[in-house]
C-alpha cells in the first residue's frame, strides 16, 4: 500500500474533479488520435509509393505523350487506363545506346457488367522480354501463364474457384500473387496471346466497336538501362533523339511519379507540422489548466507539507496526475484511432481520396504505442512546471494558500 500512496492520491484527485480531468484527457486524446490518423495516412502513401516504384522494376517507363498523368494515376491511385501506342517504336527504343532491356505491357479495362468477373485492370506482358512480372511470379512460385491462363492480384476474389470471366469468356486462374498493398493487388495478368483472344471476343467488339490486334499495341514500355548508365540521360535520349513524329514520352520511374512523390512529401510535411502545432497547443492548454488548478490547490499542498510530505512527494502527486491524464488520453486516442482505422478503412479512403491505408494490426498496435508514449510525454512535460513550482514554493506560503 505504502508504495502506491502517491498514485492513490493522484487517482483520487482526478476522479473527484471529473470535468477538469476529462477536459485534460480530451486534449491529450486529440493529440494521440490525430497523430495516429495522420501517421497512418502518410506512412501508407509513402509505402505505396516506394513499393510501386520498387515493384515496377524498371529504370524508365515510356508512355504515349500526354498520358503520363494517367500512367502515374494508374500506378499510384489504381485508376484503370487503356491508352496505347504502336509496337513499331519498341524496336527503335531497344536499339538506343544505354538500353539493356525493354519489355512492353498492354493495359485493358474490363467492364463492370455481367460479362466480366469484376471491373479490373488487365495487364498483358511478353514473357520473352519481361523482367518485371516474371520476377514476381518466381517470388510467389507461380508458373508462367500459358494461352488462356491468368494470374490474379491478391485482392481479386473470383466467383468460381480457379476461373475468371472477361468479355463472356472463361479463363483459368493458375495463381494469385501475394499482397503488395499497391495497385497491382487489383490487377489481372496474362500474356499477349491471351490479350489477343480478349480483344477478338464478340463482347469486346460490342463494347468498343473494334477488334484490334493486341500484338500491335503497347501501353507502356518498361526499360532497364545498362549498368552504370544514368537513367535520366537515357530517358532524355528517348525523348529528344528519336524521330520528330515520335508520339512517346520517357520518364524515369521516379520522374513519372514525381507529382505523387511531391504530394506525398508535402502531405508528410503538413502532417508533421500539424502534429507539432497540436503538441504545442496541448502542452499550452494542459500547462494553463495545471497552473490554474495548482494555484487553487496551494492550501492542499500546504496541509500535506505541514504533515511531513516532502517536496518530492508533492511534485510526485502533480507528475502522477499528469502521467495518468497522458496515459488515459493517449490510450483512448490510440485505441479509438486503431478501431476507427479498421472499421472505417474504406470510408476514410473514399472521403480523403487516398489510394491505400495500411491497417496491418501489428503496425497499428506499434504506432498506437508510440502515440501513447508521445501523449504521455507531452502530458508529463505540461505538468513539470506545476510540479517544479510546488516543490520550490516555501512551506509558509503553501500553508497560507498564497498563489504560486
Amino acid at each position, binding site marked *: *500500500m*505504502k508504495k502506491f*500512496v*502517491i498514485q*492513490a*492520491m493522484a487517482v*483520487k*484527485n482526478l476522479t*473527484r*474533479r471529473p470535468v477538469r480531468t476529462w477536459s485534460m484527457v480530451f486534449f491529450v486524446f486529440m493529440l494521440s488520435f490525430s497523430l495516429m490518423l495522420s501517421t497512418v495516412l502518410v506512412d501508407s502513401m509513402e509505402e505505396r509509393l516506394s513499393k510501386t516504384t520498387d515493384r515496377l522494376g524498371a529504370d524508365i517507363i515510356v508512355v504515349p505523350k500526354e498520358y503520363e498523368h494517367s500512367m502515374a494515376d494508374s500506378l499510384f491511385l489504381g485508376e484503370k487506363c487503356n491508352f496505347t501506342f504502336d509496337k513499331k517504336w519498341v524496336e527503335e527504343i531497344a536499339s538506343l545506346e544505354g538500353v539493356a532491356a525493354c519489355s512492353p505491357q498492354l493495359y485493358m479495362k474490363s467492364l463492370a457488367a455481367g460479362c466480366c468477373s469484376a471491373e479490373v485492370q488487365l495487364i498483358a506482358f511478353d514473357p520473352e522480354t519481361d523482367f518485371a512480372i516474371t520476377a514476381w511470379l518466381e517470388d510467389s512460385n507461380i508458373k508462367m501463364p500459358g494461352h488462356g491462363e491468368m494470374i490474379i492480384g491478391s485482392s481479386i476474389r473470383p466467383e468460381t474457384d480457379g476461373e475468371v470471366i472477361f468479355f463472356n469468356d472463361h479463363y483459368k486462374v493458375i495463381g494469385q500473387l501475394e499482397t503488395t498493398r499497391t495497385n497491382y493487388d487489383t490487377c489481372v495478368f496474362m500474356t499477349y496471346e491471351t490479350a489477343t483472344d480478349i480483344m477478338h471476343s464478340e463482347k469486346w467488339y460490342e463494347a468498343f466497336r473494334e477488334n484490334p490486334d493486341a500484338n500491335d499495341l503497347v501501353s507502356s514500355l518498361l526499360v532497364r538501362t545498362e549498368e552504370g548508365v544514368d537513367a535520366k540521360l537515357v530517358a532524355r535520349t528517348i525523348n529528344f533523339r528519336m524521330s520528330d513524329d515520335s508520339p512517346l514520352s520517357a520518364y524515369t520511374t521516379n520522374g513519372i511519379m514525381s507529382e505523387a512523390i511531391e504530394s506525398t512529401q508535402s502531405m508528410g510535411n503538413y502532417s508533421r507540422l500539424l502534429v507539432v502545432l497540436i503538441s504545442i497547443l496541448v502542452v499550452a492548454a494542459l500547462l494553463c489548466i495545471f497552473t490554474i488548478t495548482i494555484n487553487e490547490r496551494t492550501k*492542499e499542498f*500546504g*496541509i*500535506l*507539507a*505541514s*504533515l*511531513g*510530505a*516532502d517536496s518530492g*512527494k508533492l511534485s510526485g502527486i502533480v507528475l502522477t496526475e499528469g502521467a495518468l491524464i497522458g496515459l488515459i488520453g493517449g490510450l483512448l486516442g490510440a485505441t479509438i484511432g486503431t478501431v476507427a482505422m479498421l472499421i472505417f478503412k474504406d470510408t476514410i479512403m473514399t472521403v480523403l481520396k487516398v489510394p491505400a491505408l495500411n491497417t496491418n494490426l501489428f503496425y497499428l498496435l506499434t504506432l498506437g504505442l508510440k502515440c501513447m508514449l508521445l501523449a504521455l510525454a507531452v502530458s508529463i512535460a505540461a505538468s513539470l512546471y506545476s510540479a517544479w513550482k510546488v516543490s520550490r514554493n516555501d*512551506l*509558509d506560503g503553501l*500553508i497560507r494558500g498564497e498563489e504560486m
Partner: protein
Amino acid sequence: MLTTKKLTKTFDRQSRCFDAVHEVDFSIKAGELCALTGPSGCGKSTFFHLISGITKADSGKILFDGKDLCELSGKEWTQLRATQISYVLQGDSLLPNFSVLENICLPHQLCGSKDELEKRALELLKEFGLEAMAEEYPSNLSGGERRRVALARAVVHEPKLVIADEPTSDLDEENTALIMDHFQRQAESGKAILFSTHDLSCLRPGMTHYKMKKGIMTRV
C-alpha cells in the same frame, strides 16, 4: 521536551521591521497540556510555525529532546513533522477530495508511516463519535466534525508533540469541550499538547498557560 531560548522572528512590512516573535523563552514537557492565548496578530501562529519548522527563526534556539532544531535541514524538519511534531493548521485543514478515513491515514502513509494506521484511525473516530462518518467527504461534515477529524489526523501516528493553532475557534461549547477532553486524554497518555486560543473558557486546572502580546510571551 521542547524548549525555546530567545527565539526571534523579524518581518519586514512596508519597509518597517518588526519582531513577530521577540526573544521567546518557552518550555513544554511530555504529558503537559499548554495553552497559548493572546489577541489576533500577536505572533502565536508565527511562533507555532517556528517551532514546527515551517518558518525559519532569525535568532535564538529551539531544543527538542536536547537537539537544536535550528541546525536541521529542510529535509530533517520534514521528517520531524512526519514523525514527532504534529501540527494542526488554523481553520479547515482537511483535504477536500479524500474521505474522512483517507484524510486521517493517507497523508501519513505518504510520509512513510506504517500501514496499520487505519485501525488506530477507526479507534480515534470512535472516540470522537465519528465512526459513522469514516467514508464521508469533508464537504458533508460540520465545522466541529472537521476539526475533530483534523485532530484525529494529528495524533494517529503517535507524535511526541501536538501543536494546534486555534483548534476551537468558531466552535460551540459542546464541540470545544469534546476537543479539550481529547487534549487532556492525549496529555495523560504522555504527549505534549500545545494549542492557541482566544477563548479563555478553554483553560482548565492543571494546564500551563502562556500569554502573548506583540511578539512577547509570558507565562501566566
